[in-house]
């Protein structure tokens, strides 16, 4: 499916490349959004806790909250958003073809992508973590590592899954599963001693099942998440950066911290007053 899509996207990109670029507009996307009166945000709907539907069928999650921060900065109203529901594969095409003003959809910053879209400042650092049963045999990462080849780790099926686990636990046995619910089930039923996946997913699962699981206290494979906008519009990029920056360090910190607590279950310490944290 993915490779088929890549080929298809390549075809579409080739067709687009053959067309004349849109005439450069004098005014920025910022003016366009302001006069339109709402933000068009591209995000998904199938990945908790980033962007997913509540039982009431309302889009929610950390990515969605990043969009709300931007909408609040634009209009003073976090609700003024029109969502464009897109698959992960559609993130970059929807930015480059102007279907969305901005995409916030757990997009990992890479050099390759940065050539196609302009990334905002980061709003989260993702990494792989290990989740243990609270009353299980192993207490933490050190115990798992010391147990060597007698531990089994459940992980999502992936070409790099084995290497990824072995980067942290070189001797562990690796069991690969089709979907996230199955890796959790393997841990629950005792077929695996720990589940390895994105720390955000683990954090969300642990807040959902409070007290039953614990984090092994080790993270690796860092990835930066940032929103993306179309290249070549510095004004708009600056605006979005300012909005996100002030949510993490300034007037909107409480909004950001509340969202962080809701989706990842952790309390953030407010930025130190006085000398700006950015320069430390």
């Amino acid at each position, binding site marked *: 499916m993915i490779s088929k899509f890549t080929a298809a996207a390549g075809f*579409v990109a080739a067709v687009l490349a053959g067309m004349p670029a849109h005439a450069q507009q004098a005014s920025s996307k910022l003016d366009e959004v302001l006069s339109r009166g709402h933000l068009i945000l591209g995000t998904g709907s199938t990945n908790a806790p980033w962007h*997913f539907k509540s039982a009431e069928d309302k889009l929610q999650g950390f990515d969605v909250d990043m969009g709300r921060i931007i909408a609040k900065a634009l209009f003073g109203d976090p609700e003024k958003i029109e969502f464009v529901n897109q698959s992960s594969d559609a993130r970059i095409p929807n930015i480059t073809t102007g279907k969305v003003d901005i995409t916030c959809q757990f997009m990992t910053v890479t050099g390759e992508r940065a050539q196609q879209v302009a990334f905002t400042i980061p709003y989260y650092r993702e990494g792989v973590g290990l989740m243990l049963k609270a009353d299980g045999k192993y207490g933490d990462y050190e115990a798992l590592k010391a147990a060597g080849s007698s531990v089994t780790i459940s992980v999502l099926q992936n070409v790099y899954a084995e290497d990824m686990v072995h980067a942290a636990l070189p001797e562990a046995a690796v069991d690969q599963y089709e979907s*996230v619910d199955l890796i959790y089930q393997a841990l629950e039923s005792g077929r695996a001693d720990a589940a390895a996946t994105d720390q955000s997913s683990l954090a969300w699962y642990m807040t959902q099942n409070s007290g039953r699981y614990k984090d092994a206290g080790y993270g690796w494979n860092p990835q930066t998440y940032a929103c993306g906008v179309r290249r070549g519009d510095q004004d708009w990029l600056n605006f979005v950066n300012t909005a996100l920056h002030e949510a993490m360090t300034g007037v909107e910190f409480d909004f950001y911290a509340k969202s962080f607590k809701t989706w990842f279950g952790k309390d953030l310490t407010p930025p130190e007053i006085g000398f700006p944290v950015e320069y430390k």
Partner: protein
Amino acid sequence: MDVSFIDQLWLARIPLFKGLGISVSISFLSIVAGTVLGVFVGLALVYGYRPVRWIVRGYTDFIRGTPVLVLVLASYYVLSAIGIDLGPFQAGVLALAVFCSSHVGELVRGALQSIPKGQTEAAKAIGLTFAQTFAYVLGPQALRQALPAWVNTAAEMVKASTLLSIIGVGELLLRTQEVISRTFMSLEFYFFAGFLYFVINYGIERFGRYVERKTAVPS
């Protein structure tokens, strides 16, 4: 687990029902539009003047040789690049209808060509116009010929409608994935979605059988 699946299913009934509605609408619209367009494509392939025939032949060969996913992406992205800005739903239905039309066109061509030439000549001899010949002589026979294959194509369209989840149309598959991301019950909900797709396709199959019976030559 079973009890809680029923609870989760009940909780998710509205989004899933909406998704089912969207899937059925996409399929219905694209099958109807594709069939109407396809009949003209088929007629052009058999009776068109040579240049028309060549153009239509190029159209069907190009469309049939292209993956549906590419058509879906093209109608969503390429059309917007040339100034026709369709929403995901419209773009998706357009792509599927075009795909359907090329298949139906070939079915109609095959069915028409399987009718002995003598019948067209006989119709001409008794003074029927082309429209009358098609309506009273060729059409009904071609319908019988093409029906089983048409049911097949219609079922394909229902399955192809799942591809629209890529461009963010909230059809049954995407809705199911949304529910799974909240409940972590992938097997149960995928099975349920599979069951619903089966029901839709079974309905189409029954409808095809019904029309076949209605149009059968009384023996």
